[in-house]
């Protein structure tokens, strides 16, 4: 039976492999959340409650986005705090809201070929569109770019972007290469979703991470 890696541990793992994430603060209690925390960050913000075994957050309504002031953030936090009562929580997250194109970057350990990487148009629609590419790891930057460009997402990586919306090919490819290195060097990872990974013209950030481990081995 697979075990999900905690949010905090997931973040440090991503960081160790150079996978960028939005600026964020983790708090455990209402007392730990004050206006100063929010004011040190760039608005708009997102507040999330992270259950101990995180499923799809949007389905459980444990995420509030588009918070433009410290007051809005605190109110959202309080509301979430109420809503999440009774759910075992790991922590709350106050995160800068990334604005850009939503992709999914995932990995799956295949019985025959070992670690594989997946890239697709992201967010909650990925299972509907089924527009994604797959590679067996490891991956270099050139392979990663080919992988990005064989999906419909290719339009975002052109000079003009899709309807003017652009995503950085280099930064997104770099995230793929780092993710590939991460799963190759941690074979106990059986599955991973970076969903969404949000790409801007300058960067690409893992906004949420779900990492499943084999058995109860930990990292």
């Amino acid at each position: 039976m697979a075990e999900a890696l905690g949010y905090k541990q997931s973040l440090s793992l991503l960081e160790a492999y150079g996978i960028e994430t939005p600026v964020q603060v983790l708090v455990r209690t209402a007392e730990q959340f004050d206006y100063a925390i929010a004011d040190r960050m760039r608005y708009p913000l997102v507040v999330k409650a992270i259950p101990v075994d995180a499923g799809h957050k949007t389905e459980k309504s444990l995420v509030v986005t588009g918070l433009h002031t410290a007051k809005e953030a605190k109110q959202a936090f309080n509301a979430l705090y109420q809503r999440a009562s009774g759910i075992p929580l790991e922590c709350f997250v106050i995160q800068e809201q990334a604005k850009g194109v939503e992709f999914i970057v995932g990995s799956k350990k295949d019985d025959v070929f070992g670690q594989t990487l997946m890239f697709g148009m992201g967010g909650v629609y990925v299972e509907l569109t089924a527009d994604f590419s797959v590679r067996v790891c490891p991956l270099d930057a050139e392979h990663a770019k080919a992988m990005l460009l064989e999906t419909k997402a290719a339009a975002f990586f052109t000079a003009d972007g899709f309807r003017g919306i652009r995503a950085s090919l280099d930064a997104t490819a770099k995230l793929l290469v780092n993710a590939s290195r991460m799963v190759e060097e941690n074979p106990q990872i059986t599955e991973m979703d970076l969903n969404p990974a949000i790409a801007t013209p300058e960067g690409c950030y893992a906004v949420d991470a779900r990492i499943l481990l084999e058995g109860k081995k930990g990292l």
Partner: protein
Amino acid sequence: MAFDRTRIDQLVKPSSVAVIGASTDPASVGQGVLKSLLYGSVFEVGGAKPFPGKVYPVNPHHDSVLGKKCYPSVHDIPEEVDLAVICVPAAAVLQVVRECGQKKVRGIVVTTAGFAETGSQGRLLQEQLVAEADKYGMTLLGPNCLGIIRPPESLNASFALAAPKDGEVAFISQSGALSDSVIDWAIENRFKFSLLVSVGNSAQLDTTDFIEWCETDPHTKAIAVYLEGLKDGRRFMEVCRRVSKTKPIVLLKAGRGAAGTKSAGAHTGALVGSYRVWKAACRQCGVVIANDFEEMFEFAGALASQKRSGHNSVAIITNGGGAGVLCADYCEENGIKLAELTEDTLATLESKGMHKAYSRRNPLDLVGDALPERYKSAVDTLMSTEYIGAVIVIQTLQTMTDTVEDAKIVIEAKKKFPDKPICCVFMGGRFTRPGSKLLVEHGIAEFNDPRRAARTMAALLGLL
């Protein structure tokens, strides 16, 4: 462990073969194998040659089988034995293998079923079989396999119904029964093989080992693989990445199970099914995936006889508009780019004589009444045009069509431009056959259907 090709040489190039379990029963596997060795083929196919080395039937219950002296055990054979084909019941296999080891037999083929494919007890028996073979340093093919056929050495160590002719495609199959039908099909379709091996349960040697062996086999120019499963995918990729550079590999994969597994709410697991991973892996290591058996051999045949090209710029020549348009559709579906014909090219074509109503574009429609001269103008012009990387020649059958002359034109052009792939679609049946037969004899892929031609062209251009 580093790959040691002499281990497979022991199966492929023996100078003496024992058939253990040779039987007087014509319906038995043991008799099938013995006939294959003694006559080259169980069914008379013409041209099958007997194995040139020594053949020893072994069976304690017979004094002779098919007129050959039969030995009670391998120990009783007075001379050395290189290869033993074992056709005794599963319960007797271990003992026989041990005797082979003591006799210093180098390679064994275990045709017997009833091992890992049957469950945990069979798995245990298979482990013991491998341990026994390893103990004596013997190469083991199988168990649960049809055997091995090596036409260039006139070796048929199998119970296949017949032996295919000596050719340039190696076929490595995880299914023995399918191999039988493939042989029957190959005989009917004049398809030839450099090697035909049924790996069965792959207890010791597996598909990857044979692919690696084919890398330096002078008889093999392309490798066709039918595969259900594999243990070490990374090694398969590593070997194929290297081998496919010189010997094209075509794979037909069974057990595609499109869907991924539902697990613990992660998206990737649900999306990425095993066949998606197989397709990705094959692309990464240069293996061409075929969708069905016919395609596998069409691809392998074309890749064995024609050079691959990376110049994706194809011209279609046709004497029928419909066939040309259909072919263009299939090309597009398979990632083939159609070359845009320049004014210069059109001027050259016209100077050599085109019909007034010819299409002036790609697909180049020569119009239905095209005689060989017009085909020759078109084929020669387009094959010699630098910006065109490959040509598909379509011929529909009209009253004035001369299929043999048209075929000769293509064959001549191919000789002049061996680096440019050519596929032909000589559509028809009885009256087209003389032309299509000539093409095939000269190693030019020929199909009765523009879709298949487009698919094979895509394989030749490295697009699949």
